[in-house]
């Protein structure tokens, strides 16, 4: 199942409306004040037109269809109708236009705010938060919220004003007759709220079962071969049949409820109509004293009674939507208000600028001396990942970090990149605590090549230029040549303008890797971080990459999370990390002599590589 869908499902049990969340949301939307005001005004106009039309109709009946019709006014009334039609046209156009506008603008604004916040948040946030969760906030939640703020508001305002208008009109015309509608409305409202709620609940369980069905289909497709080898076709099918059977029953339950809803509202409404008809006629015929009713008044009342169904149902619906959207609103506010725990101090910002307005002129060039001083780090309070870690790396040195998964290699990298900050202790770059420079400044001087290269949807050119925004075409080609990528790029039909696809999917893994090198090379960073790929790529690309790496590392302080023997051997310094501590350190030869952890790791890797090569 789709990850995004999963997080949508988490979901939206109706919640009590909390005013504080909505206040914040309203604050967010108020940037579109003008449109919201026009929208509300046009909706009120629409309600007024809806209320006035039956009045006009009843006037027509009074003037032309009574005992003494007065046909002299016929053009006046026809004129009124035409005017009414024109007004309707304009109002409907206006409110649709504005509501649509508010919807897109609010959606735009929410996504923008959230996205900007996401850029500000440190990497640790992404580590802790599943990407599906974040995606759902920027997609389904922003959609839900913008819908409710635009169309929900339209429905709400229209309903309230129509009801108010109708009430005013009927009380002015005949308050006794008006009491009938007044009594029926609250009952109808309760019925509507009840039904909206139960229908929602029923459909929620339908949705859950439906996602189970999708999951089953998914399993049946992905696990088809295994299912065959285990002869499970029949038992899987029987399981699935039970599921579709449940689905049918649950759907029918939901359908029954929603099919019942409208007839009940209808009958209730017509009880009102019948009562109005009966009592009104009684008045006209003189059976019921004190109700002076005329035919046209009766017509008006019957019309108004039927006009009352829709707003009542609409309000019930909006209330339930609002309750559902509550969860979305909370999560979005949650995201936008997330505390940023790695940030530049105001003094640093004053010199180096913010990430939106960097003061590059004040950025001193870096040499590449790195020092960890008594660094201790823990992700959670319970578990210390790095203990009193000390490390000095000279300018231009290559450090290979070796160790099993979870030993703390990536923590060292994360700290160096200031994706995280030490819990205690300091990290110095060029003899200055790195917190005294801006995060952006550090990142600008960092070259980072990931284990699984991440490219962005766009052309190869754009992807290389990601390392240097104002790079010229010559620089891009130069970088591609250094990364040994130029040749394969020009062999592609569109050359540097080739689209790489989502996440680079149109290129092979090796090609992606080379481009991610070019992207780092063009940046000409002083500190280089290489997270070596564990997954096997073909030997040729591997050799190519090896060559590129060796060239690239010259003159830069380099940290490598190393897996391949060849990289490890050449490092100036090898650190064997275990349980957050440096267990062994030295050159390849020195470590082999010790016959310790490194010796065994190296042996294992050696055997594995040789074995893999033998059957290729």
């Amino acid at each position, binding site marked *: 199942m789709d990850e995004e869908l999963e997080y949508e499902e988490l979901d939206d049990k109706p919640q009590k409306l909390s005013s504080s969340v909505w206040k914040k949301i309203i604050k967010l939307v108020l940037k579109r004040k003008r449109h919201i005001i026009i929208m509300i005004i046009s909706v009120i106009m629409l309600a007024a037109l809806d209320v006035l*039309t039956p009045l006009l*109709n009843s006037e027509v009946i009074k003037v032309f269809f009574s005992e003494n019709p007065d*046909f002299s006014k*016929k053009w006046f009334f026809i004129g009124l109708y*035409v005017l009414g*039609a024109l007004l309707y046209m304009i109002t409907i*156009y206006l409110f*649709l236009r504005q509501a*649509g*506008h508010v*919807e897109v603008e609010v959606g*735009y604004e929410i*996504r923008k705010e959230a996205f900007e916040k996401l*850029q500000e948040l440190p*990497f640790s946030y*992404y580590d802790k938060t599943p*990407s599906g969760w974040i*995606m759902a906030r920027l*997609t389904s939640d922003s959609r839900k919220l913008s819908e409710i703020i635009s169309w929900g508001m339209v429905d709400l305002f229209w309903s309230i004003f129509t009801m108010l208008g109708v009430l005013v009109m009927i009380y002015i015309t005949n308050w006794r007759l008006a009491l009938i509608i007044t009594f029926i409305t609250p009952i109808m409202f309760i019925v509507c709220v009840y039904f909206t709620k139960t229908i929602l609940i029923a459909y929620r369980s339908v949705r859950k079962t439906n996602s189970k*069905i*999708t*999951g089953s*289909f*998914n399993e049946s*497709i992905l*696990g088809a*071969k*295994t*299912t065959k*080898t285990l002869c499970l*076709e029949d038992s*899987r*099918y029987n399981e*699935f049949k039970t599921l579709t059977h449940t689905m*049918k029953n649950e759907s*029918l339950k939901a*359908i*029954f409820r*929603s*099919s*019942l809803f409208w*007839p009940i509202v*209808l*009958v209730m409404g017509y009880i009102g109509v*019948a009562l109005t*008809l*009966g009592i009104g*006629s009684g008045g006209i*015929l003189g059976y019921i004293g004190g109700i002076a009713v005329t*035919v046209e008044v009766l017509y008006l009342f019957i019309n108004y009674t039927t006009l009352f169904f829709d707003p009542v149902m609409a309000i019930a619906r909006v209330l339930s939507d609002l309750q559902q959207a509550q969860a979305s609103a909370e999560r979005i506010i949650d995201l936008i208000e997330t505390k940023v725990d790695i940030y530049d101090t105001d003094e640093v910002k004053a010199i180096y600028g913010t*990430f939106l307005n960097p003061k590059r002129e004040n950025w001193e060039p870096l040499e590449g001396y790195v020092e960890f001083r008594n660094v201790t780090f823990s992700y959670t309070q319970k578990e210390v990942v790095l203990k009193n870690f000390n490390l000095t790396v000279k300018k231009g040195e290559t450090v290979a970090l070796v160790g099993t998964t979870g030993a703390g290699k990536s923590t060292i990298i994360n700290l160096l990149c200031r*994706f995280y900050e030490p819990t205690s202790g300091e990290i110095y770059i060029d003899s200055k605590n790195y917190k005294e420079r801006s995060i952006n400044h550090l990142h600008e001087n*960092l070259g*980072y090549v990931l284990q699984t290269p991440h490219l962005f949807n766009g052309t190869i050119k754009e992807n290389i230029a*990601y*390392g240097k925004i104002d790079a010229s075409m010559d620089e891009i080609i130069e970088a591609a040549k250094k990364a040994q990528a130029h040749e394969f790029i020009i062999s592609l039909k569109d050359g540097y303008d080739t689209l790489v696809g989502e996440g680079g999917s149109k290129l092979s893994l090796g090609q992606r890797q080379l481009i991610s090198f070019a992207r780092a090379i063009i940046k000409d960073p002083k500190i280089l971080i290489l997270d070596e790929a564990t997954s096997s790529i073909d030997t040729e690309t591997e050799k190519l990459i090896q060559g590129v790496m060796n060239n690239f590392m010259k003159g830069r302080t380099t940290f490598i999370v190393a897996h391949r023997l060849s990289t490890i051997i050449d490092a100036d310094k090898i650190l064997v990390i275990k349980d957050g501590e440096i267990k062994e350190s030295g050159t390849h030869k020195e470590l*082999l002599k010790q016959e310790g952890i490194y010796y065994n790791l190296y042996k294992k890797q*050696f055997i594995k590589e*040789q074995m893999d090569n033998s*059957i290729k």
Partner: protein
Amino acid sequence: MKKLLKWAKPFIFLLLVICLLTIIVPVTYSYVPQFIKYVFDNVLEQKDAVNTLPAFLINFFNSFDPIKCVIVVGISLVIFQVLRGGLMLLNGYLKGYYAEGIAQNMRNKLFRHIGNLSFSYHNNVDSGDLIQRCTSDIETIKGFLSNQLPQILYIFASLISGAIQMASINVGIMLITFCVIPINFIASAIYFKYVSRKFDEIEKVEANMTTCIEENVNGARVVKAFAREKEEIEKFDKKNTTYKDEVEKMNRAMAYFWGFSDGITILQYAVTIGYCIFLAEKNLVGVGDIVVCISYISMLVYPIRSLGRIIGDFGKSIVAAKRVDEILSKDDEYVINGTLKPEIKGNISFKNVSFKFDDAESELLNNISFDIKAGETIAIVGKTGCGKSTIVHILERMLEYTSGSILIDGVELKDIDKKWLRKHIGIVLQDPFLYNKTIMENVRISSPNKSVDDVYRASQMAHVHNDILNFDKKYETLVGEKGVTLSGGQKQRLAIARMLILNKPVLIFDDSLSAVDTETDQSIRNSIKKYSKETTTIIITHRITTAKEADKIIVLENGCISDMGTHADLANRDGLYASLWKIQGALEEEFLNLVEKEVK
């Protein structure tokens, strides 16, 4: 069209009832205003106006004095609406029953069929597309058959009934009304066509925007490490704006259409009422008539406006039906099957077996011949892509050999029932799939009546028992999509346990110990041997140390058997095996040499 409608066929009777109800509900609505009209005309104005209510009802009403008559009419109206409400409920429920029935049939049929499709189909399938066909395409078809199809009938029914009723009042009024209907229809047809095109565009733009977010979130490391936050915001803002603008365009079209269409409708009210005034001047219509006419107009206009959309949906449903049909038209693998269910002991004999994929040019396997006696252990070695897995897939009849003969205990493989065969010849695939269930359920999935002890025993043999006990929920741990993530080795060992629980006479390991280390590999094989001496075992492996212990080793090169024999035979003969043995068997030694050299 046929492909679409065939799904409604099993429910044809239900569909007829639904159609009938869909027609009855609006038709009976046309009587609702007649009750009110009756009161207005006959009681309040005391004239004998035309009324379409049945004569017996009119006579019945007429038999009361005015005030009682009003009460009776009022009660009748409510009763009438209750009855209509009942019909609506029935219609809604039946429609649901019909729709869900169709969906259930389609889902079951597709699921069953997909399960039975051949191994090669599943090898090449685009799973995302297939899922879409199983979910959204089914929804489209269901929606059309249950909503739009009756809706079309509803529209025609209300047009006809409205026309008749209006004509009974005044032909002129009817004609005026029917002049406007085509305008609304054409406008809606144009609008919905535009909308559906625009929707596709918007979807693309939205997908583009979503991709941008996705890449940003998943690539947060890169964005931060390259200090490109500002540029990312600018890039996203562009996509966000494009999306906004596109939706805005559609909103504009929507506002134009509904404004226009509603305006036309209201204009129509105006014209009808104006016309009524003229008629009233000539004393041709009464109050009741005008009330009724207005109700009719609204009854007609709304369905007409949806007609444009129905046409669009119709096109989509036909495409969806074709896509679903495409899957169902692929051959079920059990169409070709054997009938025999012989006792399988584990004697296997290949004679000149060749295999080639239908669309391939050359043979993948060429003249393969070998014999395995029951209880023997056979290893197949060879380089990547030489056809090792194909041999065992053929043995499982996942693939059908193109020529030659394979005998299982003397019976030709092609004559043996596929399921019978697979029940007796177990295989652990290279990349085994675990179901989204607990570990306990996964291990005993083929035989749910096995005891917990059996599960433990199998897991111990597969050396995965201790791993499982380390999970928080032990054997109740959920695996698969929504469960814990298992390592490759754990998956393989669970799959092995799943097979070992069954006591099959033949076991095949298709490189299925690749992710566990050499020692575990060894002890798993030992415990299998200890457990059953009669089991025939076929092991595909890259590890010569594993192959070495087999009774017979088959060396495969480019789809042909290049050599066969015991380790002692092969290690002394020049060839692939010997060279592999030289490299792999002496790795430890080589390593020590290397260290020696390096340290000095």
